[in-house]
């Protein structure tokens, strides 16, 4: 609560009332619009023909494309109103890469870390979440996140069923990418975020409970955060919303993706309780091979995540590509060396953990910091989550099975803060006007994200527990989720 009191007056006024209205309304509307209709509004009739652009203007438009900038022609007159090929190509690639991160990237990364008897449950959760979230996103999720005409906390239902999202139009996301690709790119983020939570509750949550939890969580946490941080009228959208109550910046999802999932994971894993036999039985990863493959895929897929968040194949994307590479490689190396020094062995799990931590921590700043800052961020990313995971976690007796909180929660929070420290207009002109006091704004965003995620998750978790229960029977858990919940085994001789 005190965190809320630290918010600026404008926000305080809005917050409590609008917030609850928002959550309730989102949940309510969801049901209402969840009916399928194949009818779609007719395409907008062409307005009265405006003046032809001059040759100079036409060249200007093309140059704008080259520079990933706004068209110079008046609205509706551009001869190249559709998506620009290079930027749109990169957006398609990036979206495919982010989907690759979840399937099979994250599924392998997490799947390798569980015991043999639960590997398929991890895959089922990732596949199930991908399907569920896609359907939600199409129905109302995109619209609640980015539909126009909402408030600072949530969008609207004006784009339900992707109504009005035209593949030939641009501008919903950025100047030169197809509006449809914007919706798809954002979908890929909406899929991976709840999938990250799976790591904290692995090996001991019912499949039905996972799906119900995720459904509610998307409405209560994800859609509002996507809106608040990345919609032009969002509460915390520093770069685009001049009226933002919190002028924070988040390039590719430090708060929206990693902090929400990480802190929610913490709460859910506490409410759920530890795995049977935790602390007594050996629970070593059953396949560091799969985990390593997943790590490589996450690394590569993350270019879509970070460099794709430039929304164009421009200089910002190139910079984000470099910062991502440097942070990931450095953090992986530092984590392994830290293990080497403190425990005598540089482990493959150490490399994997460090690489993912580096990727997480650089995410919010990827397009805002310079490459050399990324190296420093990478070093910190290899140290801070390492200390948490290796020393502090045990103190708290947490069974964050695959360290979702340790890596995404701790790392996402660290990243959001370091973005405030290292963001530089040398890397991105957007930073210029926001740099003053940025760190404070970042801290406000961090505080709001933590409080919101923790409270919402606690409520949802208890609802799910009450309605269908969270955990399988002890026998099922002992024998493994794979054969009991999915009727299959991961490996058959």
């Amino acid at each position, binding site marked *: 609560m005190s965190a809320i009191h630290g918010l600026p007056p404008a926000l305080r006024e809005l917050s409590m009332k609008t917030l609850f209205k928002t959550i309730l309304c989102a949940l309510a509307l969801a049901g209402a619009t969840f009916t399928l209709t194949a009818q779609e509004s007719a395409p907008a009739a062409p307005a009265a023909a405006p003046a032809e652009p001059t040759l100079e203007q036409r060249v200007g438009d093309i140059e704008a494309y080259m520079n990933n900038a706004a068209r110079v022609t008046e609205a509706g007159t551009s001869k190249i109103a559709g998506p620009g090929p290079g930027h749109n190509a990169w957006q398609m690639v990036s979206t495919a890469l982010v989907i690759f991160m979840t399937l099979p990237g994250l599924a392998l990364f997490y799947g390798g870390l569980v015991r043999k008897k639960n590997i398929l449950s991890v895959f089922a959760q990732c596949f199930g979440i991908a399907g569920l979230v896609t359907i939600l996103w199409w129905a109302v999720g995109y619209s609640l996140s980015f539909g126009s005409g909402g408030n600072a906390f949530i969008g609207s239902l004006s784009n339900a069923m992707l109504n009005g999202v035209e593949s030939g139009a641009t501008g919903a996301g950025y100047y030169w990418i197809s509006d449809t690709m914007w919706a798809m790119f954002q979908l890929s983020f909406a899929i991976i975020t709840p999938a990250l939570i799976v790591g904290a509750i692995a090996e001991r949550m019912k499949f039905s409970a996972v799906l119900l939890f995720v459904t509610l969580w998307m409405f209560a946490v994800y859609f509002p955060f996507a809106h608040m941080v990345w919609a032009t009228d969002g509460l915390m959208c520093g770069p685009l919303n001049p009226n933002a109550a919190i002028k924070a910046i988040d390039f590719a999802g430090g708060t929206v993706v990693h902090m929400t999932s990480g802190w929610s994971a913490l709460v859910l894993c506490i409410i759920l309780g530890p795995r049977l*036999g935790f602390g*007594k*039985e*050996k629970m070593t990863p059953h396949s560091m091979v799969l985990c390593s493959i997943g790590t490589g895929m996450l690394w590569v897929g993350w270019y879509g995540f970070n460099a794709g968040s430039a929304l164009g194949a421009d200089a910002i994307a190139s910079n984000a590509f470099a910062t991502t590479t440097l942070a990931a490689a450095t953090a992986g190396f530092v984590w392994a060396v830290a293990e080497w020094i403190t425990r005598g062995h540089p482990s493959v799990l150490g490399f994997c953990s460090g690489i993912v931590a580096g990727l997480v921590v650089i995410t919010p700043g990827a397009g805002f910091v310079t490459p050399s800052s990324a190296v420093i961020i990478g070093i910190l990313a290899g140290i801070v989550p390492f200390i948490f995971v290796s020393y502090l976690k045990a103190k708290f007796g947490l069974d964050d099975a695959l360290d979702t909180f340790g890596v995404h929660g701790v790392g996402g929070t660290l990243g959001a803060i370091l973005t405030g420290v290292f963001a530089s207009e040398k890397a991105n002109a957007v930073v210029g006007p926001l740099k003053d006091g940025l760190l404070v704004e970042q801290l406000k965003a961090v505080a709001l994200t933590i409080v919101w995620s923790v409270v919402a998750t606690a409520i949802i978790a208890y609802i799910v527990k009450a309605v269908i229960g969270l955990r399988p029977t002890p026998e099922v858990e*002992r024998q493994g989720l794979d*054969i009991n919940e999915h*009727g*299959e*085994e991961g490996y058959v001789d």
Partner: protein
Amino acid sequence: MKLIIAIIKPFKLEEVKEALAGIGVEGMTVTEVKGFGRQKGHTEIYRGSEYTVDFLPKTKLEIVVGDDLAAKAVEAITAAAKTGKIGDGKIFVLSVEDVIRIRTDERGEAAV
């Protein structure tokens, strides 16, 4: 000397090992096996087909002990491995004629 063969539930291995260590058993050999008994298996489904898997994963321990320790070892295993549910497993006791420690060429009880 006796060879004690115990078929137990896999997750009981650690407890049984400790129980045996408690009475002074210093060596054992462990094999992953599949067991078939009164305990029912589960059904697996693959597209059109359903398969009944009636073999369950079990852990087999082989422990050679001197005649004196045999009874205590059986007791220790029984106590540690019991859950009271079907599928807890069985213990078989066989007589061993000779034991050789490869490293030292020792034989008989001394080699156990």
